[in-house]
């Protein structure tokens, strides 16, 4: 997008996106929202939408756009926040999140008018579909990239590894996965539920792997994304980004209970005040 984008400007956008996450989740009232999963992924999504990806909100279907696939679809609020800030979705629409008849469901529903590439939310499938999209770009000799956000718990799914093997075999060097390694899944800590060496696994299936120690640090994640975007390894790429679930709101950080739940007024006010004074 705009050339004048700097790390500071992305950080400012990330801060606005965090506020949007809280606003949308609060607007959903008793229907609740997946706060933790969205907040851990803010810097990743902001870096993609404000700097790394070539896209145009005025032309959501332009052929040469880079594709963003949110395979961990339950974190849709970070995606929607980026779509609001880049101008795909209006603020009024944003407040319909999870409302009766709204198009902003609790998991993304394909809607090309608003920049939503695929329906996701059944874990594992978005990543495998991204593989097909990357292959399609190769078939059609198109130069764009496919960026796919995956959860670390989501990597429990067999289909992740089926698709990863296929991606390596098909030499999908236009596919860049980002694992949001926040260390918490639905029922507990990832290390308690399925303790695996993700780095070794991704390497074993033939992917180029990059670890980002501070996945909520914009400069670090941006550098990794740019590096993978320009890599000449010929392999598909994965960035394993260590993040904090619920990042930015103290009581949501590293919390299992804030994976998904309603936000009451008191907690909403506390979250807003923390974000405003950050």
């Amino acid at each position, binding site marked *: 997008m705009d050339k004048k984008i700097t790390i500071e400007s992305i950080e400012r956008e990330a801060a606005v996106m965090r506020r949007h996450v809280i606003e949308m989740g609060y607007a959903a009232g008793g229907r609740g929202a997946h706060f933790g999963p969205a907040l851990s992924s803010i810097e990743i999504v902001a870096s993609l939408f404000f700097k790394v990806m070539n896209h145009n909100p005025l032309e959501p279907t332009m052929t040469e756009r880079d594709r963003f696939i949110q395979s961990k679809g339950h974190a849709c609020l970070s995606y929607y926040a980026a779509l609001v800030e880049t101008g795909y979705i209006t603020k009024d629409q944003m407040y319909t999140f*999870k409302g*009766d*008849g709204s198009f902003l469901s609790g998991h993304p529903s394909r809607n090309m008018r608003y920049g939503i590439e695929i329906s996701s939310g059944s874990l594992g499938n978005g990543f495998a579909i991204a593989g097909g999209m990357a292959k399609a770009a190769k078939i059609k000799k198109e130069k764009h990239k496919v960026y796919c956000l995956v959860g670390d718990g989501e990597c*429990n799914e067999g289909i992740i590894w089926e698709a990863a093997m296929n991606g390596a075999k098909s030499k999908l060097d236009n596919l860049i996965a980002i694992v949001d390694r926040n260390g918490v899944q*639905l029922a507990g800590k990832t290390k308690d539920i399925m303790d695996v060496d993700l780095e070794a696994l991704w390497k074993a299936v033939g992917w180029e792997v990059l670890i980002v120690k501070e996945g909520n640090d914009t400069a670090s994640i941006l550098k990794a994304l740019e590096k993978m975007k320009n890599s000449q390894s010929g392999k598909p790429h994965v960035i394993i980004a260590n993040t904090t679930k619920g990042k930015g709101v103290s009581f949501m950080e590293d919390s299992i209970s804030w994976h998904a739940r309603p936000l009451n007024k008191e907690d909403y006010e506390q979250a807003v005040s923390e974000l405003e004074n950050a």
Partner: protein
Amino acid sequence: MRKVPIERLQEWSKLGHRTVLGETLVMLGADYPEMVTVTADLTPTARLTGFKEAYPDRFYDVGIAEQNMIDFTAGLAVEGIRPFAVGLAAIVPMRPAEQMRVALGYMNLNATVVGIEAGVRFGPLGNTHYAMDDIAVVRAIPNFTIVSPSDPLQVHKALYAAAEYDGPIYMRLTGGPGFPIMYPEDFDFQIGKAIEYRKGSEVAFISNGALLGEAVAAAEILQTKGISVRVIDMHTVKPLDTVMLDKVFSENKLIVTIEEHSPIGGLGGAVAEYKAGFSGTPKQVFASLGDKFQKLGDHAFLMKENGLTASGLAALAEENL
């Protein structure tokens, strides 16, 4: 089987089927030492924390891996352990359908697969989280029994019945917070044996799951208009209680099948398939979620959209009489 006091039933009604499931599994754990619980990263969602704490050695979380959950469950069952595998009805059975067919169905294993939040209970989460086809998928698998209990006590009793049942069961759970109590007192529950909940001569409502409450309310609306309605609680979709259906065919004029499922392959489909073998049977209409993906909305909104409310059901019956 234990006696459940009315206070507990009221609490279960307030909290919905997940709480009944979680608490009943703990009781089953005490009563059946060979019984275990398996899940795929759903412990708090499916209210399994109590079981996990009570029986840490008999609780297995395979991670977010539903296909593995079913095959792992099958492996346990092959060796004589009695597993209850718990997943989201929207994901299990559809995702591991082949594992359910080949491992549980084909080998006719003693295992129970529980699908929580069936139908469109997950309203605002959207279509990826709606289970509108789960019965259809399982019904096509030979050997599977499918139970869709209609009230909190029936969920409890059905889980107990499952613990002693021969063959694989899919237990489809509906009924969230505000799950109507239809059976305040203990009652006779047998898998495969429908319950005539209300007598009536003209219309026959055949329902299952938490919609029984709406069906009975609709019958009362029609009663005030002088239309007599029989209500059948067909909690078991497979095998169907054909003795009860034969009675309905000979005694009622219109059948309305009522389910929080697609009209294809569910209770309505099962009744229609059986009915196709006879001439001169009553007309059947389907109250269902329709053959479509849904709009987004909360559960009450979607029930209304699809006419699955007392007034919607009453209107459907009246139009077709």
